[in-house]
């Protein structure tokens, strides 16, 4: 909140006057009074704004739901368009569900399915994943004899059709160079692919399809960094060797480890509990390893712990607040709907009078007749 320096000079008497005006403008009732605001002072005040109990669209108070005006009729599947208007339920076996959007129940198909016949009763009846008549979308027909593979007609560039599948002949051990050609050790000792001698398979090697031919290659993540393939085979583990991390000759800096072929931890990060973290920003390791910032981390906490420059705080999502000063339940107050914390902590609506809080404001309306107290 920005405060202008001129506020420093505000006399106390003005502050007191402002307080009265402020009281008059608060749409809140501390004493369960039936009138929300009044023009000035207390005794003899003329009230011109009264409690409004009707919900403004699209909100409603629906039976069985907590609170007043808490149901959004635009998006609630149990009250879609009006209270009790429930969208059809589906089970987990049907590849579709119903959602409520803009007050209407809408059919939502699961991935790879579509409602091509436009009938709601059979839902999303068409698989667009492999149906050549509806490949990737309703009515998208593949040419005669062309495969529908993963929602598109034909095989991608670099792939070849083998039966009902698309494969990479250059790198597929089950289809190496040709459909059905399995890459494995040659049966004949005379086969020239035994490059280190008949039956000799050096350390950490395997028969592998590469460039569409089958040959002895280093297994992942090993490499032949000393160029002695038939001697010590693939002697280096690129995933762990700090002198050859990820590639032959790629040395990690002093103090770094090689993990999964990457030098860790990267600059600016520290190893904590097996992971590389930024101690200045990580709420689980704030300032030092294991120093977890307090407060609920639940997705329903409507907020979460923050670590800034290695110091902890707790941040509420807009519209929510920690009104009970208990971080274990996070930002428990919904300032948009709470009658007791409407718009800000402690700002009570007229609970006894049934005054709802909508969008952070206690609802009011002009009084039918001005009321003098």
């Amino acid at each position, binding site marked *: 909140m920005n405060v202008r320096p001129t506020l420093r000079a505000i006399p106390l008497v003005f502050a007191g006057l402002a307080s009265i005006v402020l009281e008059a403008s608060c749409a809140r009732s501390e004493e369960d009074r039936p009138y929300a605001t009044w023009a000035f002072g207390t005794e003899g005040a003329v009230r011109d704004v009264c409690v409004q109990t009707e919900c403004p669209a699209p909100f409603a108070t629906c039976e069985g739901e907590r609170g007043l005006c808490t149901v959004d009729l635009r998006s609630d599947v149990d009250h879609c368009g009006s209270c009790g208007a429930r969208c059809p339920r589906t089970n987990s076996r049907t590849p579709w569900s119903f959602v409520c959007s803009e007050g209407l129940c809408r059919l939502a198909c699961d991935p790879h399915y579509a409602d091509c016949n436009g009938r709601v009763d059979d839902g999303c009846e068409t698989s667009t994943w492999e149906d050549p008549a509806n490949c990737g979308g309703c009515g998208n027909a593949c040419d005669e004899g062309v495969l529908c593979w993963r*929602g*598109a007609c034909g095989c991608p560039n670099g792939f070849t059709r083998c039966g009902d599948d698309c494969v990479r002949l250059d790198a597929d051990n089950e289809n190496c160079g040709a459909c059905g050609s399995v890459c494995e050790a040659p049966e004949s000792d005379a086969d020239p692919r035994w490059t280190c001698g008949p039956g000799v398979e050096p350390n950490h090697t395997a028969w592998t399809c590469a460039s569409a031919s089958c040959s002895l290659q280093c297994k992942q993540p090993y490499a032949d960094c000393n160029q002695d393939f038939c001697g010590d085979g693939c002697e280096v583990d690129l995933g762990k060797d700090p002198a050859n991390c990820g590639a032959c000759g790629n040395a990690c800096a002093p103090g770094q480890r090689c993990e999964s072929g990457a030098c860790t931890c990267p600059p600016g990060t520290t190893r904590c509990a097996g992971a590389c973290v930024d101690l200045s920003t990580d709420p689980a390791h704030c300032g030092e390893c294991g120093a977890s910032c307090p407060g609920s981390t639940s997705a329903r906490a409507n907020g*979460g712990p923050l670590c800034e420059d290695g110091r902890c705080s707790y941040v509420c999502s807009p519209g929510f607040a920690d009104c009970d000063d208990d971080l274990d339940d996070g930002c428990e107050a919904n300032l948009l709907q709470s009658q007791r914390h409407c718009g800000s902590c402690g700002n009570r609506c007229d609970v006894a009078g049934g005054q709802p809080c909508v969008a952070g404001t206690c609802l009011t309306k002009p009084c039918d007749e001005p009321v003098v107290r």
Partner: protein
Amino acid sequence: MTRTGPKRRRRAPGLAGALALATLLSSCARGEERARALAGEETEDAAPPRGTFDDASAPLVEAPECAEETAQIFVVATDKGFYRFDPQDLAFVRVGTLGCPTTAGTFSMAIDRRGTAWVEYTDGRIYAVDTRDATCKPTAFRPGQTGFDLFGMGFALNGDDPKGGETLFVAGNGLASLDTKSFDLTFLGSLTLGRSELTSIGSRLYAFSVDSGVVARLNKQTGATEATHRTSAIAPSGAFAFAHWGGSFWLFTGQTRSRVTTYSPDTDESADVVADTGMLIVGAGSSTCAPLTPPK
């Protein structure tokens, strides 16, 4: 956004009364608190109120549209590293580490024309990140609306003229638009692609699914597929991200570490341009300020 520190700081007495008055004007504090504050008494409750909407109404990133850096690609990795990626020299520059107030992981991202990165985390919440320094603010997005828990995201222009504005689209339990002011999500229609990420070329919206390697142009009103392109970036069950730059799609895919593949819809050709980025990228985005054709 409201923030609660472990200890509230006490302010200078001269300012306390005025600040308390300003607080009252905005929040209608409780009566006894008002009395103490107006008497100039320094109280713990003179601290800013918790749970007002001060920050919620502020712009997420105060920057002009289409500043130079918004024309590049940004990516976010599983380690919460936030990077700027220059498609011309294929270099990643680490902007910083995302410090959003959550212990959840990163899931997807979209970039708007003012340089705000909208980042979804695995807890379903969306945070607004300044692409200049990776600072982060929570948004008022309500997770799980209309069955959308986790989703891909991308902006598209509303028309050929950028003055017509842009819309944030999300791909989860179908295609939906997300109002970045009210954070209301509007369901538009089903998607046939499967789990998808989104990007745009101008006003045209595209989805990419790593399960099939398909890039599809989507109807922005219904989610229906209008055109299909086939890329070689296929990695079932892997992480993936998607952006557009210079007339090509940039695909970030991998199981433990990502590679970068480009796909040109004009030539229908894919090319692996970075074999190993050294990180697993889960979100990528380019704003609608990105060039539509390759720079000369």
